[in-house]
C-alpha cells in the first residue's frame, strides 16, 4: 500500500510539472501583455516594467526562472494588483470563500442527488421517476449562468428573501443562492448516475438473496444496493469536488463573490502571468489529490478492488 501511494505521489509530481510547463508556454503564446490597456503608457515605462518582472528575457529563460522559483516554493507575485501581492497569499485569501461555498454546494448535491437517484431507480418507470428524470436532464443541459440568473430573478430583490450581491450582507442568506446554483449541476449529474448504477445493482442476484432473507426495502436499497451503486458516483465526485471547491467562476461572477474562480478568469484577461500559473498549479494539484483519495476510497467501498495489482 505504501509503495502504491509513493508511486502515485511521484506520478502526481510529474503530472503537475507537465501541466505547469504546458500552461506556461500556452500562456506566453497568447498575444498581449499585462501592461496594455486603453491608455497605453509610454514605451519606456513598459520596458521598465518588463525588466522589473523579467518579461524582457526570452520565453525559455523565463520558463527556467519560473520553474526554479516553483521548486523552491515561490509562486511569484501578482503583476496587476497594487503592492504586488504574492500569489500564494492571493490563493490563501481567496480560496476559503470559494471552498466554503463549494463545500456546501457539493454536500447538498451528493446527499440530494444520491437520494433522488435511489428513489428514481426504485420507482423506475413510475411518475416520480419520470419527473426526476426531466429535472435532472434539465439540470445537466442548462448552463450554470442560466440557473444562477433564474435564481436571481426569482428570489432576489426588494421584498424577496435573498441578497443580490454576496458582499452586501454577512447573513447566512447570502450563501443560499450561490450554493444552490453551484450544486445544481452536480446534483443532477449524481442523481442520473446513481439511478443508472442503482438499477444495475438492484437487478443483481444478491438483491434477490437479500429479499429472500426477509430484509426490508430500506435496508435492501440503502445497504445492499447503494454501496455497490456508489462506485461510479465516487469516480465522478473526485475531480468534481476539486472543481467545485476552487470556485465556479460563472456563479462567482453572477453573485459577485470574491472567490478564487472569479479571480482566476480575471487574471487570464489581465495577463497576470504569475497568478494564472499559481492558480492552475493549485487547481491541478487539488484534482490530482482528490483522484488519489477517490482511488483509495474504492478499496474501502469495494473490497474486491486490489490497488497494488493495477499498473
Amino acid at each position, binding site marked *: 500500500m505504501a509503495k502504491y501511494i509513493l508511486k502515485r505521489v511521484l506520478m502526481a509530481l510529474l503530472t503537475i510539472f507537465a501541466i505547469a510547463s504546458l500552461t506556461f508556454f500556452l500562456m506566453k503564446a497568447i498575444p498581449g501583455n499585462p501592461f496594455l490597456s486603453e491608455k497605453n503608457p509610454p514605451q519606456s515605462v513598459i520596458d521598465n516594467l518588463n525588466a522589473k518582472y523579467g518579461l524582457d528575457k526570452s520565453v525559455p529563460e523565463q520558463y527556467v526562472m519560473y520553474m526554479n522559483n516553483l521548486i523552491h516554493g515561490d509562486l511569484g507575485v501578482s503583476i496587476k494588483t497594487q503592492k504586488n501581492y504574492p500569489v500564494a497569499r492571493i490563493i490563501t485569501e481567496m480560496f476559503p470563500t470559494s471552498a466554503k461555498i463549494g463545500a456546501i454546494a457539493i454536500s447538498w448535491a451528493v446527499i440530494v442527488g444520491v437520494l433522488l437517484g435511489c428513489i428514481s431507480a426504485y420507482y423506475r418507470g413510475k411518475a416520480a421517476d419520470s419527473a426526476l428524470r426531466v429535472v435532472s436532464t434539465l439540470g445537466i443541459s442548462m448552463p450554470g449562468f442560466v440557473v444562477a440568473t433564474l435564481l436571481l430573478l426569482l428570489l432576489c430583490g426588494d421584498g424577496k428573501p435573498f441578497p443580490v450581491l454576496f458582499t452586501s450582507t454577512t447573513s447566512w442568506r447570502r450563501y443560499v443562492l450561490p450554493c444552490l446554483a453551484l450544486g445544481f449541476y452536480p446534483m443532477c449529474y449524481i442523481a442520473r448516475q446513481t439511478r443508472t448504477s442503482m438499477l444495475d445493482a438492484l437487478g443483481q442476484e444478491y438483491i*434477490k*438473496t437479500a429479499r*429472500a432473507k426477509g430484509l426490508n426495502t430500506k435496508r435492501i436499497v440503502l445497504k445492499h444496493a447503494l*454501496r455497490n451503486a456508489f462506485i461510479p458516483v465516487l469516480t465522478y465526485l473526485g475531480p468534481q469536488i476539486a472543481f467545485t471547491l476552487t470556485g465556479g467562476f460563472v456563479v462567482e461572477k453572477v453573485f459577485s463573490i470574491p472567490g478564487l474562480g472569479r479571480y482566476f478568469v480575471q487574471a487570464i484577461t489581465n495577463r497576470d502571468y504569475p497568478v494564472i500559473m499559481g492558480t492552475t498549479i493549485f487547481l491541478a494539484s487539488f484534482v490530482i489529490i482528490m483522484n488519489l483519495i477517490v482511488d483509495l476510497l474504492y478499496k474501502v467501498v469495494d*473490497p474486491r478492488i486490489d490497488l497494488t495489482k493495477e499498473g
Partner: protein
Amino acid sequence: MSEHTEQKENLLEVRDLHVSFFTPAGEVKAVSGISYDLKYDEVMGIVGESGSGKSQEAYAIMGLLQSPGKVIGGSITFEGEDVLSKSRTEMTAFRGSRAAMIFQNPMTSLNPVYTIGNQLIEALRAHDKSISKEEAGKRAMEMLTMVGINNVQQRMKQYPHELSGGMRQRVMIAMGLICHPKLLIADEPTTALDVTIQAQILELMKSLQKQTHMGIIFITHNLGVVAEICDKVCVMYAGKMVEQGPVDDIFYSPAHPYTEGLLRSMPRVDADSHERLIPIEGTPVDMLNPPEGCPFAPRCPYAMKVCLQKMPPYVDVGEDHRSACWLRVQEALEKKEGKNDG
C-alpha cells in the same frame, strides 16, 4: 387423490396456482394450475426445462415475484396460513424466518462488498431484533460449522470473492437455515458447481434435512439430482404440471411422454457404451402463444387429435402418482370398461 388425507401434516399446500407475466407483448402464463402438498420432513423435486415456470412457482411461494409477474389464481397455504393474503410487511417477516430460499449461482448471490459474517448476522437479526451482535455472531459461526466450513472465525471476516463456489453455496445454505425455517426452497443450487462439489452439496443438504426435519423444494432440471435427494417429484412443462409422484414411480414407471423423454435424454452409468442419448424432438413452447391442448403435444411421439385440442385432466396412475396425459385417460377408460364387461 391424496390431497385430502393427512391434511394436518402438510407443511405446504399449493392449489391450482396460476402465475402470469403481463408483458407488452401479451400475457405469459408462466405457471398455470399447479397443485401439490409438501409434508414436514419431505423433499420434493420440481423438474422441468428452462422457462417451464418452475422457478416462478417457487418465487410465488416466497412472495418474490418480480413485476410484471403476478399470482392470478389459486392458493398457497403454509402451516395452515394463507400466504397470498399476507401483507408486504408480513411477507418480509415470513421470508427468511419460516421459509428460506437459496439460488442457482453462489458466485453472484452473496453481496460482494460485505463480509460473510456481516451477511449471516444480518439474516439472523432481520428476524430476531433482540439478539445481540455477539450472540448472533456465535450462531452464525455455529451455522458455518454445521455446513462443513472450517476456520469459521476467519471465514466470518472474509469477503465472498475470497471463497470458492462450493464454499459460497455452503454459506448460502447456512444463511438460509440460520433462522431454522420449516421450508427451504433450493433453486438449482448445484447447477453452477462442478460435479464433485455438486455431490458434496447434495450430501450436505441431505444430512441437514435429516437433522432439521424441514421440508425442501428442490428445483432442478437434473434428474440425477432428483434421484439423489427427493422423495417425490413434480414434472413441469410449459407452466403446467404434467406428472407428479413418488420418486421411484417417476423413474421406473413414468406416466407421461415428457417424463419418458427426460429419462431417455439423461446419461446413465449403467448404459451400454453404444447406447445413445435420445433428445426430445422439437423446441420448447412459445409461452406467448401456447398451444390449445396439451402443451407437449407438438413434440409428443404419441400425440393424438384430442391432445391438440384439449388439456388432459389428471389421472391417478398409482398411489400419489398422477399424470396429465390423454393416453392415461384412455387406459383408465378401457380399464373401467373392462371391469364393467367382466
